[in-house]
């Protein structure tokens, strides 16, 4: 594994108590939700991970403990290495601190996570829906939200579905 990644993982384990997981050559640190801002700041200032490449969330329903993981991918331009961070969150309406002050482009990423998963970001400047319509109810990418599948119209149920489908009149 890369020198710099090893140093970073070691230093963060001593300072913040983060766990390290290695899977298929990728390094991921598991960070608790109170410490995420400090960890990001340390990674950016001391170890040179200046680019926030990706920020997303994963839902593990029906397991509720933890139900969500928020995933961050940081990239260091000088050394060309990536590091991943994982923040486990419990419950159905979790919240975590925003990292918008460290990486400004987290603004839209966090809005999207709020829209799709319902995870609140404390301290965010502008938390409102970004991809769904303004008055949509529900958070689509949660596992208990249905896909919205429409029944396929074959010849045997053609007329039934035709009657139910809302066609536009003039």
């Amino acid at each position, binding site marked *: 594994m890369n020198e710099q990644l090893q140093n970073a993982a070691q230093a963060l384990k001593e300072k913040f108590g983060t766990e390290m997981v290695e899977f298929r050559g990728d390094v991921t640190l598991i960070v608790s939700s109170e410490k995420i801002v400090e960890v990001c700041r340390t990674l950016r200032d001391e170890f040179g991970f200046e680019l926030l490449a990706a920020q997303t969330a994963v839902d593990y329903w029906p397991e509720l403990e933890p139900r969500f993981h928020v995933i961050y991918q940081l990239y260091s331009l000088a050394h060309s290495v990536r590091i991943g961070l994982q923040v486990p969150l419990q419950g159905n309406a979790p919240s975590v601190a925003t990292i918008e002050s460290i990486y400004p482009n987290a603004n839209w990423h966090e809005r999207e996570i709020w829209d799709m998963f319902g995870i609140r970001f404390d301290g965010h400047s502008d938390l409102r829906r970004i991809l769904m319509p303004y008055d949509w109810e529900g958070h689509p990418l949660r596992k208990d939200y249905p*896909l919205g599948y*429409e029944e396929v119209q074959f010849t045997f149920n053609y007329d039934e579905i035709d009657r139910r489908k809302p066609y536009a009149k003039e």
Partner: protein
Amino acid sequence: MGVEQKLGNMGVVTLKLEQVVNWARTNAMWPMLFGLACCAIEMMSAQAANYDMSRFGMELMRASPRQSDLMIVAGRVSRKMAPVLRRLYDQMPDPKWVIAMGDCASCGGVFNNYAIVQGVDEVVPVDVYVAGCPPRPEALIHGIITLHEKVRGETIKEWA
């Protein structure tokens, strides 16, 4: 040549009113720019030099709905976009026609989920459906020619 023979000495041609009006409507039908997604790129390719659509009278695409007669819904319509689509359709003056280009506009396409309207005929009445994902420019041109044939067959009773 043909018209002069018919004119003869009088300088007058007699036709049915329907034929003249339908001929005028088909030969200069202006589409409204309504490219949403991937089908829009194929629509732009159909407009470009290789599969020229100006041969069929569609020299330019008007961005303003008040100045166009044909709306080619090219691409997937999401639930957020559907009210906008209906509003633009209402702003077009009569006579107007709609071509649903591509699978997503005709029936929802590959995306059978919460975010896409399953077929744009839930929002606006459609005249011609063009299948394909995305349809080749030749398929779109075939759809336009089909629409022209439909318009040529219209009678006074069906006019708005």
